[in-house]
């Protein structure tokens, strides 16, 4: 295994976040819509219809190329990729060929303590195809159905050079690509819903000088399946080479359920797509001012943000990394930080309690009923000793379900810290009486016993006691026992 050099390149398709399709004015929000409702003569390829490029799709494609440090070519030219398939109503896909939007870019990410740079070969824009339905909806036996709602949705295709050398590295690169497109707002990058799709070229070779036979792996629907599929494919290829067998240049499909890749097309002749410039779409000359205007919209990218969070707020790399994985999470963090300037504590709460609540509700942070300001208020209350951390966890849970402010919940439930010393002294006395062994332990120098006793008091008061005061009283009491 270690004697083989693994080479992986990625081909990533992202759905662009436009309101309308790439060459017509139909809406793009096809999710959950009845089949063939978001269609028109253009995206159905009806006789006589003609495409007109959506300006926003052009801008987003350029933005993607810019964010990936590409050189933007001065003219936008669309080509036709000709092939027959029922989800392709014109018999060709409008795509780009030898003149993509951007070339020669790079993407950087941290991997195993190193900063990796993977070259981006090209970034181009193209239209999506329709969707095939194979079962359900009373389809006649031996038939498939076609829904053209997705047909014509703008995509950006990002192709990396084969600069990746392990499935782990490929996954990290893909995660970074996903994060970048999300950061610049060109795509929601959701693999499960298909708004981000990834194919990979994999080859193994006994020598770094010579590339092995390239195998294309398709049909990977999550980051996990990308990793598993690549792992499987590398092992499969190594195994074959070990046995002295040779590899075919082919396309293989990842079968998620069985955890294997399967040859898709066999040794049939390669498709001949007969690319040629689409005569229905005139080339567009890109003005410098237009490109500058688009570039100005590029916000801070994930890697830069991670570094800034580590420097400005002294967050550990790991935590900063988790925060920036999701732009909205990091945004939430920085928003809350404005009103509660204790980054480490805030970060801990974000990555434990907040994420836990989000996961349980199955939502993401943008759908949360708790605002950054509300979280900050909760943390301030802990900080001021108004409630304990334990209580606060319960309060946060309630905030997530009701959307109420922390203070409101606390006062409504009558929960707040018992700071009344008389009241607490009573409980402390009881606890000391019930736990003579622990008292003895403490007195014999076992510091741990003190924490146990504090815990018992907290337990008795259902977490409502102010732990600082409990500690003071306990220490006084124990001192008197000596």
């Amino acid at each position, binding site marked *: 295994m270690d004697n083989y050099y693994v080479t992986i390149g990625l081909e990533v398709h992202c759905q662009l976040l436009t309101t309308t399709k790439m060459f017509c004015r139909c*809406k793009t929000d096809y999710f959950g819509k009845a089949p063939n409702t978001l269609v028109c003569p253009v995206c*159905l390829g009806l006789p006589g219809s003609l495409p007109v490029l959506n300006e926003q799709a052009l801008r987003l494609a350029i933005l993607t190329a810019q964010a990936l440090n590409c050189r933007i070519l001065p003219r936008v030219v669309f080509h036709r990729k000709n092939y027959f398939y029922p989800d392709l109503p014109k018999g060709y896909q409008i795509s780009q060929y030898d003149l993509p939007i951007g070339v020669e870019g790079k993407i950087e990410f941290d991997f195993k303590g190193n900063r990796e740079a993977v070259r981006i070969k090209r970034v181009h824009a193209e239209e999506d195809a329709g969707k095939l339905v194979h079962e359900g*909806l009373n*389809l006649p036996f031996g*038939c498939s159905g076609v829904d053209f709602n997705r047909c014509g949705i703008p995509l950006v295709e990002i192709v990396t050079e084969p600069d990746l050398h392990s499935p782990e590295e490929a996954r990290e690169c893909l995660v970074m690509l996903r994060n970048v497109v999300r950061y610049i707002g060109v795509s929601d990058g959701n693999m499960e819903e298909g708004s981000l799709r990834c194919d990979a070229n994999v080859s193994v070779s006994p020598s770094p000088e010579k590339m092995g036979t390239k195998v294309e792996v398709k049909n990977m629907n999550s980051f996990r399946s990308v990793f598993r599929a690549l792992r499987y494919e590398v092992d499969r290829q190594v195994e074959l080479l070990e046995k002295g067998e040779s590899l075919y240049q082919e396309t293989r499909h990842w079968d998620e359920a069985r955890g294997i890749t399967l040859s898709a097309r066999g040794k049939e002749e390669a498709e001949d797509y007969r690319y040629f410039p689409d005569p229905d779409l005139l080339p567009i000359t890109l003005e410098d001012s237009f490109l500058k205007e688009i570039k100005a919209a590029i916000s801070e990218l994930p890697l830069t943000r991670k570094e800034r969070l580590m420097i400005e707020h002294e967050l550990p790399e790991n935590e900063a990394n988790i925060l920036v994985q999701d732009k909205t999470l990091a945004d939430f963090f920085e928003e809350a930080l404005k009103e509660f300037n204790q980054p480490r504590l805030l970060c801990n709460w974000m990555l434990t309690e907040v994420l836990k609540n989000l996961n349980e509700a199955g939502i993401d942070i943008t759908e949360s009923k708790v605002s950054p300001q509300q979280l900050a208020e909760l943390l301030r209350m802990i900080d001021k000793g108004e409630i304990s951390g334990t209580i606060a966890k319960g309060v946060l849970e309630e905030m997530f379900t009701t959307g109420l402010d922390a203070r409101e919940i606390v006062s409504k439930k009558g929960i707040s810290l018992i700071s009344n010393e008389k009241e607490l002294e009573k409980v402390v006395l009881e606890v000391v009486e019930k736990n003579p062994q622990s008292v003895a332990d403490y007195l014999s120098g076992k510091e741990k016993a003190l924490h146990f006793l504090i815990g018992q008091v907290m337990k008795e008061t259902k977490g409502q006691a102010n732990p600082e005061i409990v500690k003071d009283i306990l220490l006084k009491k124990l001192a008197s026992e000596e």
Partner: protein
Amino acid sequence: MERKVSLAEIKTIAKLSKLSFSEQELANFSEDVNSVISHFEKLNRLDLQGVSPTSHISWGQPPLNPDEAVVWENRDWVLEQAPEVCGRLIVVPKIVEK
């Protein structure tokens, strides 16, 4: 006449075009294509070095669509005319996904 396009090539081309021909038709089409292609030889007399191709006739920047939705009211017409539908789906012979 020199044959530039072989029968096998025409077969491949027919397959790419989704057209099916009898052997006789194949022979005829191959002859036709060869005859036209032989006329194209004439173009080799021209010096095309450094000549840029004209794939479009363009008189300025093309219009772009604004990113605002327009609903097409006649969409159901298409379903009514389609060769075979099931509910709102267009029906085609079973596809074994590539």
